[in-house]
């Protein structure tokens, strides 16, 4: 694979990551090598094979739809980087023009 810096930037944005210029070459080289390594899969004959998505053969394991309190509000807020008594606080989403 020959991913260029632009493709690395696109992937990084999809993953919500960023790389400093000096690290970008490093991640690009690693990715190209890893993808080449994974390209070996192309030589496996998978004609007519269904993708394996679920490992369990159990089907339709249902439960009663009952109301329960999974986590108290104070617990849910416990690890918030920023909060007030009832809510998570996040940086402003809308900006003044």
């Amino acid at each position, binding site marked *: 694979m020959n*991913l260029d810096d632009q493709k*690395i930037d696109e*992937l*990084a*944005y*999809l*993953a*919500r*990551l*960023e*790389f400093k210029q000096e690290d970008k070459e490093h*991640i690009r080289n*690693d*990715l190209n*090598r*890893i*993808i080449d*390594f*994974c*390209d*070996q*899969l*192309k030589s*496996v004959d*998978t004609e007519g*094979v*269904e*993708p*394996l*998505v*679920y*490992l*369990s053969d*159990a089907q339709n*394991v249902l*439960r009663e739809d009952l109301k329960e309190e999974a*986590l108290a509000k104070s*617990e*849910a807020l*416990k*690890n*918030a*980087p*920023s909060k007030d008594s009832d809510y*998570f606080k*996040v*940086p*402003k*989403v809308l*900006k003044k023009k």
Partner: protein
Amino acid sequence: MKRYRSLSQIRLDIDEGKVSCSSLVDYYLERIAQNSHLNAFLEIFDEDAKAQAKLVDQKLKDGSAGRLAGMVLAIKDNISYRGHHVSASSKILEGFEAVYTATAVERLIAEDVIIIGRCNCDEFAMGASNENSAYGAVKNADDESRVPGGSSGGSAVAVQADLCLAALGSDTGGSIRQPAAFTGNVGFKPTYGRVSRWGLLAYGSSFDQIGPISRSMEDCALIYEIMAGKDPHDATSSLKEVDSWEYSPEKKYKIGYIKETIEREGIDSELKAHFNEVLDGLKADGHEIEAVSFPYLDYMVPCYYVLTTAEASSNLSRYSGMLYGHRSSEAQDIDTTFIKSRSEGFGEEVKRRIMTGTFVLSADYYDAYYTKAQKVRRVIQNESKALLDKFDFLISPTTPTAAFKLGEKASDPIQMYLADIYTVQAPLAGLPAISIPTGRTKDGLAIGTQVMGNSFEEKKLFNFCKQVLESYENL
């Protein structure tokens, strides 16, 4: 204090009044302090452990103690324990406190286990050497210039160096078995779906399983049996009943080995010779051994990486700097909150895998990589199960080399990934597999042998491994 190999030895001495849970905890705490340079623990729960020990000692006197009374256990730092920090050895979860307890841990506590602390690991369980931790590498206690394996390296060293009796790890591609092999322990990855993943910080959800690292087969089986079974919190946990295991010696089994595993380039000659000796020993003990060909060996690691990086890129999207975990001081809006927090919080290998996963899931490459790998996974599962219809077990070396040097593979991700070449088959196919200690190199490094069984046939697997271990006692 003497070094215990199993809970049953401890219980005998408790019954005779030679030790108590409190004295055991004090002993392990002292050992941990003496061995802090190994970096096996990220945090010691000393006050909790002492309090729990007192409680269990009382229960033992009352005759109301659970099945794990006397067992001092360490847990990997990706398993939640309410009121205690859990970080997956990542800066992004620095200071994070678990608000519930993993089902597996809950069940062990209900049987009076004593949890002594949380163990270092590769960040988000991604690694084969425990060098990818934000809190520094772990050292192998047999040779401190070498790695303990990963990702459950801290758990493995905690048991190896007698810092606790047993430990929990998690296995996605070999993260219990490979470090167990590098440290001379028993390490077990259950059948997929056997142990609830509730409370395990997710890496590759269709692969991850919690399992024990121990010194004896009995402790491995006991911890497993208590943790296993349906959990309403994990929809992928199996409804199948969990059988308890009782040892029946002298059973004869039919065992296959994939000849490519020892013919492949990259296996150390000493480990190859050792494996052949193990096979000879099994034959001498009356087991039937047959070599088979399995032409998929070289495809297993690539298949594993495509699928687990894809799952990781999705699972780790939850670390966004919004609800918990690290938020960057440069967060000014949605994008900078996500991007700066994640880029500052995640380490290099985690970023590499998220990027790889994002690539294989991106619209242009999804079918060529992700769907293709899912198909290859089915082929590997079908072919593995076909072999296990014919044989009771498949046996191989656990690893191609003994513990390697710190830094030796750190700069080459692919060499590091290939450390898992023998261990990824079991999680790709959802099968149970154990690594048991069967030898030492001439330099004194531990060698593990891996035994893989058919789905949900844990009991048979334990029985065989116990038989084998009996021939290798006192390693």
